[in-house]
């Protein structure tokens, strides 16, 4: 399978995604440091928590009695420092998990290209991808942001990643079966 366009495209897309993740990590770190040095450029940045990304979620909002509107609370420059650190760590975690996910997926694709599809390495890769997506869904299922005059927390069940976890574990089992069949075939003279 040396001239497979689809595989080549997938590898290219994965590499682009990998570099995008690295860049977004750098951008995030830059923003994280910048927001602590100088908060004034972030006056206008407000959070919009109204968007619904699908799935069931439980949102809790609270605010000081002195403030009337939530939009005055949810401002980028009014985040508590501890919340900022937690958010940064969480987002970094998500980026790292996604990066390793793509890396494992690339391993699988490269092995398919080398016509070594049914190896134990791929079984391990799919298991690892499953675990990584599980970590990802844990990381994205809950967030808590404390602002100076209020806060918000959201708990949701991310169905799509959890389904992907299931899918990748099923894939691992399928590949395990494939490895057994390949061994059987290799030892048939």
């Amino acid at each position, binding site marked *: 399978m040396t001239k497979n366009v689809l595989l080549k495209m997938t590898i290219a897309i994965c590499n682009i995604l990998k570099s995008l993740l690295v860049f977004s990590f750098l951008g995030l770190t830059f923003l994280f440091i910048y927001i602590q040095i100088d908060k004034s450029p972030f006056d206008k940045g407000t959070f919009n928590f109204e968007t619904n990304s699908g799935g069931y979620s439980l949102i809790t909002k609270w605010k000081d009695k002195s403030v009337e509107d939530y939009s005055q609370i949810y401002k980028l420059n009014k985040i508590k420092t501890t919340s900022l650190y937690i958010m940064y760590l969480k987002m970094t975690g998500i980026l790292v998990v996604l990066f390793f996910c793509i890396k494992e997926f690339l391993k699988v694709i490269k092995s398919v290209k080398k016509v070594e599809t049914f190896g134990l390495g791929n079984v391990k890769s799919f298991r690892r991808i499953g675990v990584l997506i599980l970590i990802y869904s844990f990381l994205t299922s809950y967030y808590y942001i404390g602002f100076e005059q209020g806060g918000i927390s959201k708990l949701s069940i991310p169905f799509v990643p959890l389904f992907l976890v299931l899918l990748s574990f099923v894939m691992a089992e399928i590949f395990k079966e494939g490895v057994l069949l390949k061994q*059987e075939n290799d*030892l*048939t*003279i």
Partner: protein
Amino acid sequence: MSIVVNLDVVLAKRKMKSKDLAEIIGITEANLSILKSGKAKAIRFSTLEAICKALKCQPSDILEYVED
């Protein structure tokens, strides 16, 4: 496994090297050594036929059943 491959014995009787046999029946030496060492899980009828033809013998000369 209780099936023993006696290919070594037949080869010695015919004074043939395993390298030559592999060449005649058209399989790699590595595969032949898998067969001889008993690591093989199965043998194709076509391979068996080729071996019998090359060594002028019967399958029973090569394969033997031994009770555990």
